[in-house]
């Protein structure tokens, strides 16, 4: 066992686990986070996705010994009780069926929009393609990404305008 200090969703935690332990189990079982979930344990589905320094990582295959950086999970996406525009879009589009995969879908979408705020349909499909859903909510996931992109663009446009006015 070894001690590790993790910064997750703006809070610091210390855990004492075997260095080979995949991050997923520490997040779920030691830190009681339930955004990241077990789907395959093989880096094939995206259920366990987390953001580390803003990059998406599959925590099911990431040993604690190689975790470097600040972790954000689905729970950490909202700030001050305000849902992230992606989460709002997900509700507006009524995306989930069972919902089990949606952690991976939302985080994959976040990374896409952070890099490319105005993705084409083709770019959305390509970016999200590694993230699976067995309830087959893909069509609505794609619609929600477009909706969120619009909302974010709209919000920043208004923001800029305000700045000019001020």
């Amino acid at each position, binding site marked *: *066992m070894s001690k590790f200090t993790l910064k997750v969703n703006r809070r610091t935690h210390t855990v004492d*686990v*075997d260095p*080979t*332990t*995949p991050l997923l*189990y520490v997040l*779920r*079982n030691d830190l*009681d986070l*339930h*955004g990241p*979930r*077990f*789907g*395959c*344990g*093989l880096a*094939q*589905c995206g*259920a366990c996705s987390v953001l580390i320094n803003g990059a998406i990582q599959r925590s099911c295959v990431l040993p604690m010994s190689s975790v470097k950086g600040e972790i954000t999970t*689905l*729970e*950490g*996406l*909202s700030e001050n009780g305000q*849902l992230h525009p992606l*989460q709002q879009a*997900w*509700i507006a589009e*009524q*995306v*989930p*069926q*069972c*919902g*089990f*995969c*949606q*952690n991976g879908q*939302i985080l994959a979408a976040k990374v896409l929009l952070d890099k490319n705020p105005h993705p084409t*349909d083709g770019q*959305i*499909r*390509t970016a*999200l*393609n*590694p*993230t*699976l*859903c*067995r*309830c*087959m*909510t*893909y*069509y*609505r*996931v*794609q619609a929600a990404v477009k909706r969120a992109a619009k909302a974010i663009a709209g919000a920043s446009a208004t923001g800029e305008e305000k700045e000019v006015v001020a």
Partner: protein
Amino acid sequence: MSVESVIPRQIEELLSSHRRNFLKSAGLFAVSLATPGVAQTNPPPGPYRDPDFRQLDSWIVIHQDNTATFYVGKTDPGQGTGTSFRQLMADELDIAFNRTACIMGSTDITVNQGGSGGSTALEYDSRPMRRAAAEARRVLLEMASARLGAPVDQLAVHDAVISLQADPSKRVSYGELIAGKRFNVTLTGNNVMSATGLAKVKPVQQLKYTGQSLQRDDIPAKVDGSLKWAGDVKLPGMVHARNVKPPYAGAKLLSVDEASVRGLPGFVRVLSKGNYVAVVFEREEQAIEGARQLKTSWEKPAAAPFPRSEDLFEYMRAAVPTSKSAPVVEGDPDTSFTSAALKVEAEYEIPFQGHTSFSGAVATADPSNGQMTIYSNDMKSYSMRTCVADFLGLHRDRVRVVWMQGAPSFGRSACEDAACEAAWLAKEIARPVRMQWMRDEETAWDTKGPAYLIKMRGALDAQRALTAYEYNARACDYNHTGYNEPDSVLIAHLMGIRRKTPAPGRASMPSDVYAIPHRRMLGEVVGLPLIWETPLRTGNLRDPDGPQVTFASESFIDELALAAKADPLEFRLQLLGASAREDSGFRRARSLAVLQAAAAKFGWEKRVGPKPRGKGQVLTGRGVAYSFRGQSVVAQMAEVEVNRETGHVWAKRMVCAYDCGLVVNPEGLRRVAECGMLHSLSRALHEEVMFDTEKVTSRDWISHPTLRHADVPETIDVLLVNGDPQPDRPDLSPYGGGEATCKPTLAAIANAIFDATGVRLRRVPFRAARVLAALKAAGVDRV
């Protein structure tokens, strides 16, 4: 960390004893067999008795703040039925939707409506819910009548407030009338489905929330990360278990070397009985490692358990059926075939396809205080309770199942296996146990939808009219696994427990209402050599045999249309002409309505035979298919692109016209329809369980591909159609919405591929390599 911290908000009430105490103090449990007065010698069997469906209080509780909680015996695996129940019940009770909540599927506090299955939630199970809500409204009106001193017919109800029609300032709320007290109203009815009070339900025209696209109440917690799932339950002293499955199907366990893992950190126990083996460790990652490292030795079975997946259909052709259904015969097909001017024959093959849930099955079992609580996302929590009780030899009143959300669990999923495993382990080691299946285990060992081999024949007369039709299905479905049977869960198989007689299985028939004068339809079941302890056990998948049967029947209708020199849509419309089978026009009218609605939206181009092939690398075509499931009818049209050089197929556009009666939540239904259709698109394009003569070799998302984002159509239109000959019937019922759209997709895609390429695919799935081989054989692969 406290236990409460990981229990979902919405089921806190379940786990506190509050609700059970309410039911108990109210005498709302069904009569137990224990005789009063002899408690010392004959102690009550256990605390978890059945809530009594004949008590109104079992269904509805009105709170002080004029809100209501509905308790229903259903589960919602993600289709939004919980929200729909609230809409229907809020309408009958006359209370604002947003002042209601719905608690579902936990066996000790909700009446037994069987959980989910068969797309019956809204069609059947909502009926007693509506009647209970209507009865509560009636009783509240009587109470208000006494309180306000006016007869009921002079009262008005609006959003849970009752007032005098003549003087609305004289009013009393439901909460003021009843909160904290019990209705104490007994319902009648021989079973839960027929439970009723004196009140009548409203005509559908008076339903206010029903028909609105209200947002689903389970979605916010699924996107903000706050939902706690069945697999998230943590209990004091809980340990983690993993199975060690036989490396070969039908293998016999020779030895388990506990010493190989005893020294690993967190080791708790290795347990085995018969051929069942599991490891238990303190932490989850330790259990995974322990299962990996445990040394076991196995003896291969003397004979191969099954043929290779490549040889499955040869095997099925040669096999001797274990059973045959009585043929369904209309008219005189033999004479028609003898005198036919033209005969058409085709054979279709659909392999085993698995549930392959998004996550491995999971369950947590808590054996505290000599009881057993199971936390599970299985859609049939009620039969799970009985199954676990029987499997462990516990009185069923000592067992309860708390239903929680989880990964998709349509049909007979492996959740049931995981629950019995967790329960057995928990009982053995007397600690709460969390059992989680790994990916390879889920893909290889979950129950499979039966493989089908379907032969079809058609006879046309000299005028090219279809006169006779023959359907002959062979399903590889012997020893079909039922729901929550203590003698057919996988752990029972592996422990050597055997049902007296294997389940016969079934081969289903097409559901169309085409007017074909002469028909014969026959179903046969065949089995694989190994029927016990096999990873190729069959069980109900979403719309259990619909996609297989409809792939054959609706592909063949297109083949017949070609022989009749007719456009496939026109051909269907003609066959649905005046003398259609089965009814006095109800099914026929609705069949026509969905086909016509789909055609109008799609912009169906009439054509006989395949589209003239273009010169490009990508060929396009369109296809149609239609079917019934119960009383729900669906027509689908697809436009596909086929890359003739790679064999890649993309369904670019899909239209689905759907008549499933009264629509409770249109946007919710559209999504369910769309997801069902895409599930079958996945089955059409990707899914096939692969195996060699020792084991299943489909073990992950590489060896068992599924639909992905890139496969999804550019546009999907779901049209909700009311084709009822009396569309404004006050008693219009919802029919099953959950599964019907899974049925026709495989055929619609195959028919579209034929239109694009002129090549008929009769073997599912249409993976690129298979499509390319067929295009090559027909010389279509080159421009």
